[in-house]
């Protein structure tokens, strides 16, 4: 697990990176230590790709993805799209979509099976999400906020949501997502969970302001202590080979 990360003095790791079970995107710029922390944790297992989206560094908030695919906003340039298609594994479908709410990372939160989306997303976008990412889509709010992609972060094993989420909402979301959820904070009390944290099934990265309490909550809800990356990725590879044959 990577903690104590800073991107140019900002602890908002989830803004400058996007982590899934099949790949990891990292923003260009910042110090080499930001990129190398990801490389060190993930390098042997999944590709770590440096990129920009629409010329910006806030890639984590602009794109939405999981092991099946990656959705990019209409502001993505052709070169960036090509670069991503070249750098990511073949089974990951990279798709640029035309959605008015272009900060897809803020509007969509997903794991490999389920996605929560902003209530005002276009119908076509919802279908694209279901199609490209291979997930079941639910329009939801989190603690009364429509930016579900900002206020919660979840993997296939657990999730962390906005601290003011009520118990009823927590139960409802947990049933939809089929994973245990906890309401908590990141980066010393920040409520914008997905901005400060990026997580997949075996590891997580968070900013240097994160307190020890917050870290232990993250480790426990995402079940990171027992996680074994190679087992998870091999399992994925096996199931892919099965379906290809």
């Amino acid at each position: 697990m990577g903690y104590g990360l800073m991107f140019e003095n900002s602890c908002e790791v989830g803004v400058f990176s996007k982590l899934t079970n099949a790949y990891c995107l990292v923003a260009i710029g910042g110090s080499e230590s930001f990129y190398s922390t990801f490389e060190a944790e993930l390098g042997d297992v999944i590709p770590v790709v440096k990129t920009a989206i629409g010329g910006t560094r806030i890639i984590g908030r602009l794109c939405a993805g999981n092991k099946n695919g990656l959705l990019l906003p209409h502001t993505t340039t052709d070169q960036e799209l090509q670069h991503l298609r070249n750098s990511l594994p073949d089974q990951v479908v990279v798709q640029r979509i035309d959605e008015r709410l272009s900060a897809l990372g803020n509007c969509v939160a997903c794991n490999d099976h389920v996605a929560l989306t902003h209530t005002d997303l276009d119908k076509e976008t919802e279908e694209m999400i279901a199609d490209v990412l291979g997930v079941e889509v639910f329009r939801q709010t989190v603690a009364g906020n429509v930016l579900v992609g900002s206020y919660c972060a979840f993997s296939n094993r657990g999730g962390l949501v906005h601290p003011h989420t009520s118990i009823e909402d927590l139960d409802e979301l947990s049933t939809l997502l089929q994973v245990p959820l906890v309401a908590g904070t990141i980066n010393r009390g920040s409520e914008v969970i997905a901005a400060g944290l990026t997580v997949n099934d075996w590891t997580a990265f968070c900013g240097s302001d994160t307190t020890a309490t917050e870290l232990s909550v993250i480790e426990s809800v995402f079940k990171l202590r027992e996680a074994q990356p190679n087992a998870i990725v091999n399992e994925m590879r096996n199931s892919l080979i099965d379906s290809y044959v």
Partner: protein
Amino acid sequence: MPRRPTRNRQSLIARPLTFAPFARSLAHLASTYMPKHQMLGSKFTGSPSNNEGGAMVKKTLKEKNEQSESSEEEEFEGEVQADFAFFDPKADDFHGVKILLQSYLDNTEWDLSGFVDLILGQTTVGTVVKIEDDEDNGLFAVVSALNLGRYKDHKCIADLKEYLLKVCLEKSIQGDLRALLGEQAYNVGLLVSRRVVNLPPQLLPPLYDALFDEVSWAIEDEPTKELRNSFRFKSYLLVSKIYKHKNADKKSRLSSDSEEAIIYDKPEDEIFHKLCSWSFNFPFHAEQVVAHELKNYRPMGLVMAVEADKVPTFREQLRSLID
């Protein structure tokens, strides 16, 4: 995990903690305000402030407003009253102050969180500016004066000293800087002053008055002799930002003389610069959003040392500048 009862949120507008209050409040800063601190009792109405950064900021705000839900509860009518109030720094202000100090030392990685904690820990000298009864706790300005000697063992101060010594390329000043940061550190106050771009300038004289008054009160009121002496600053060190014209070093005249050689990010820095004992510039590398009017300018850092006895002159000149 301790659970708090749900807050009944009427609106469906997403409000990321740090972003929306900025945007909303900047939109509201079109004109009216009332500085509680001085109890002026008069209300000002004026047209939207016209500084360089202003045009860009308002444009992005408009777009943001258009994209938000139709159930927007606040109508942007042009002039909204905003009551600014001055508060002592407290632990809750961590995120707001940290954002304001984000590019304090350019894009170097240093112990910024520790630095923010220092500012928030010093409640006797230091002020933050917030809106009265703002539920989102948005922070608009912070000022403080930190004794470099008192805090010399903190990592953030060590990082700061290292950075300043590294970027000071003018040999003549290096000696002075080293002295201020070294043997004379106990007499030096690091004057930290950061704020949002569009803060009404009328707030500046009371803000600096508050700071320097608190320093003189601390000299009398602090519980221990050591603390009292720690506020007897002989000089202040300031780290600020300017925009230097790209052709400023060339001897040839600029085609349009109306273009100034240096544009100060904060107007009071010009006064400090005139009153300072020495100063130096250093290049700024952090990514900037460059306004059209600033395209011929390079952002640079400015470090100045101002003698403490120049402070009354500064206060006077600031007042006449703003009025």
